């Protein structure tokens, strides 16, 4: 599996599902996202973006979570077929 097929979460189209692959190790935001269940191998769906394009809403482990694009930019995902 080539790293080239990974895109950032903020590039994922609305409605698409993906598997989380890579994640910055440091930073309060990413620690909290991890603790809320976003881990390598976790599958998620981009539900929608807010009316002004940011933040985004994802569905992960059966619940809905918002995060800003500035964080989503650093989260690498592999889109599911």
């Amino acid at each position, binding site marked *: 599996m080539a790293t080239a097929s990974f895109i950032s979460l903020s590039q994922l189209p609305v409605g698409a599902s993906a598997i989380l692959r890579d994640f910055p190790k440091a930073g309060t935001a990413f*620690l909290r996202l*991890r603790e809320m269940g976003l881990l390598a191998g976790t599958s998620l769906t981009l539900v929608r973006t*807010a009316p*002004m394009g940011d933040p985004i809403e994802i569905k992960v482990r059966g*619940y809905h*979570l918002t995060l*800003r694009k500035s964080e989503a930019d650093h989260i690498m995902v592999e889109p599911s077929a």
Partner: protein
Amino acid sequence: MALPAHISATAAGANSRQPVYALVGNPNCGKSTLFNALTGLKQKVGNYPGVTVEKKVGTAYSQHGQPITVIDLPGTYSLAARSPDEAVTRDVLLGRRADTAQPDRILCIVDATNLERNLYLVHQILDLGRPVILVLNMMDLATRAGLEIRVDQLEKLLGIPVIACEALYQRGLIELKLAMSRADLPLARHAWTVPAAIAPAVSEIAAALVEGDRKSPLVARAEALLLLTDQDSVRVAGSTPLSPRTTEILRAWQSRWTQEGTDWAGTLVSSRYDAIGALAAEVVQLRTEVGPSASDKIDAIATHALWGWVVLGAVMTLLFFSIFTLAETPMNWIDGHVAALSDTIKSAMSPGDLRDLITDGAIGGVGGVLVFLPQILILFFFIGLLESTGYMARAAFIMDRLMSRVGLNGKSFIPMLSSYACAIPGIMATRTIEDPKDRLVTILVAPLMSCSARLPVYLLMIAALVPGERVPVFTKVGIMLFMYGLGTAGAFFFAWLFKRTLLKGEPPLMIMELPPYRLPGFKDVALHMLERAWIFVRRAGTVILGISIILWFLSAYPKAPEGATPTAQLAQSFAGRAGHAIEPLIKPIGFDWQIGIGLISSFAAREVFVSTMGVVFNAESSAENTAPLRTALLSAKWPDGRALFTPLVCFTLMIFYVFAMQCMSTIAVVKRETNGWKWPIFQTLYMTGTAWILSFMVYQGGRALGF
């Protein structure tokens, strides 16, 4: 054990100490509802000393009438605390707070529809080595979502009592109370293997914590795990700094792992989720695949690119419509009864200072607080409703982008919006903002939003500014909207400025759960509303009462000669002299000493300006009919014969009221919410300073232009 553990147990012995339970859980899992259901009205709401985090302690009664103390801890997703609220939860559970004894037992509530993420906190709490009871709340919603949860299996796997419950409908409470009153509660059987790469570090750090920091062995392991989960060890240690030896060991492990490329925090979190995943696989089954939930359908509209704004606009319009129309009748009623009471006392007592002190000082002051109560109650009710239904999170989601322009996040939106009605509920609603700096910035700028107490001042000034009966309504509305817009722009400008200078911090995050929409628990909303209103009455009420009595004294003494008119009395009173004293300060912005008296009296509440002007200029007026006062104002003159209330002065006075901090109740509440006098004093100075500078520019600029 033949029977499920929580049924076979006996009740706690009568001579045993009253057990103390801590209630913990994720946000939005129904924790407050359960707390209210368990304790009813037997609650004590206060503050944890040193931080502005609400402390709620209540008493529940077992089936045998034994009292059980329950501490409702702030909701959190993890013990790795990020906000002051979450830090309180962590510190109480770890027995670090001197003001709160470490709870004997822990009541963990989870949202059954979302077991995996909720179990993460439970998993951390099981590390604490205390007896835990797990409450699976919202079982009805889990069933509706097509989930089947095998409660007995979960109980077997964890080895602790697991109670299925629907707190909103009081279901499962008897079973829960039976479990809570058990004399013996088993410790969790659930064994969790710390990943091999990290296990030696955990034992080494735990040992150092026991030796160097005098932690009990049970807590030490949990603390060691926490230190390794959050990379910011200072934040984890909080108010109890680590001993040098522990810090040294921690640093040594961290640098070793960094060299090896081990992501220790990530490994710990992942291994917890692996353990939880294995549990969930045995316990939760998706029985039926259900289509998009009701929440999904609502959100397709409520957060839609176009309809989302329409819904938000409609909700906010409804909110303000209710505040200004529904509140009117009770406000008039209160006003009428306060006046009637005052009149009764006036006719019953012989004239004199004591009578005036009671009627004009005390009753007038209390009335001044009570009259705002209907608005504040409605506002708190709506805020509670928006929170308990889940719409609050959507409003924050929609508004986040706009708020981020000034460096805040979407959660500041509702507090700022509420401040259009009254800054006090707005400031009290800032507790949902996690980041302390963002919260402080929101508190500092909230009173710039034009509150309803400014409205009578605006109305009077507009009436004086554009006299005549046939002034187009658009002119009046236009001036009014300009003032509201100016305050809003000011609030955003100062938020932007403070976030860049004084309270610089990381850009706020918007990591927020969008909980499913739920029917509101009206009992919880009502309780929340009454609690908040009581805080308002206590904090603001006492301040306003005191200020009213002082203001009464200032205007009643020293006495004018017998038979003087109220106007003459006020003119030579302390208040009148104070007006004269500040005249040099306010003359450059076009105000004389008589307006000065009005400015001073506004500290009780801004709308008092109107009644003070009535006394100063000897004109009877009421909120409904400002015509006599308007006429009196327009005939007021400076000693040299120039008109006092020129259109420019009226306009400048409105600008001054937009920005100046003149509300003692707000100052009192800001002091409470920021835990000291520093910020309310700063706020008063920056707001009033801005008011003066802008008024000066407008007045002098206007004069130069020939107005």
